[in-house]
């Protein structure tokens, strides 16, 4: 669980752009814990496809607008 995930994300930026949404608020919106949001943002956890879709839905973005394959960057 401690290795860096190959899946990157724009969660921090998107939260900031969406009214400076807190980690707690995002966690509540998608039904996960704040610790999981922290783990996602610090690339310590790769979300399931379902969770990725739920998070993208909260921000009104397609999944690849929130998550990306880091090797491609």
């Amino acid at each position: 669980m401690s290795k860096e995930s190959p899946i990157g994300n724009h969660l921090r930026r998107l939260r900031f752009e969406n009214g400076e949404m807190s980690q707690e608020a995002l966690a509540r919106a998608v039904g996960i814990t704040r610790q999981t949001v922290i783990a996602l943002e610090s690339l310590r956890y790769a979300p399931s496809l379902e969770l990725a879709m739920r998070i993208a839905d909260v921000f009104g973005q397609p999944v690849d607008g929130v998550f990306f394959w880091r090797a491609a960057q």
Partner: protein
Amino acid sequence: MLSSVFSLAACALLGVLLAQSWLPVGAGLLGGAMMLGAAAWLRAHWQRQPAAPDLAERSVMLSSGCTLVCLGFFLAKLYLIGPELDIHARGTRAMGSQLWILIGLSALAQWIARAPETVRDERDAAISSAALMSTVWVLLAMQVALVWWFSFVKDGNMAAMSAGMLVHLFIASWMLAHVLYDLTCLRAYASARQLAG
């Protein structure tokens, strides 16, 4: 991290102390009352803290503490009873009833300290399944070691133990595996928190 290690060691030590025969009240009731008190205190403590651990981490913390109390009691009692444990002896029956009281009250303590308003998510499930996988291997290794010890090392080992003691040693290995599972989960949560700063 260090405080968690001390807390868990204290739980195991409490279990060992509960196994002593000089206690004025039954070990089950005394240990159970202490676990219930600790659970009520923890619940109030976590409610006051804004950055309290999540539900899954809390339940693993409580489970490891309670199981260590029970395991400490169980192993110390087995040691005191000795290898010729008789299932139907008074001392063994007393140990069994006190252990069941301890287990019942520890379940109640975990129910009291639960936090129903928080969620258990897929990361908790991932941590749990990784811990379960490593626990299964450790349990298997422990059972192989026990079988090897009983059967192949020094002819006297198996003969010196009653069937009751052999069964209880296997039960102890399952309890130990449960503690290992909890500790593996706690380690994963602690390292994730450390990485997140």
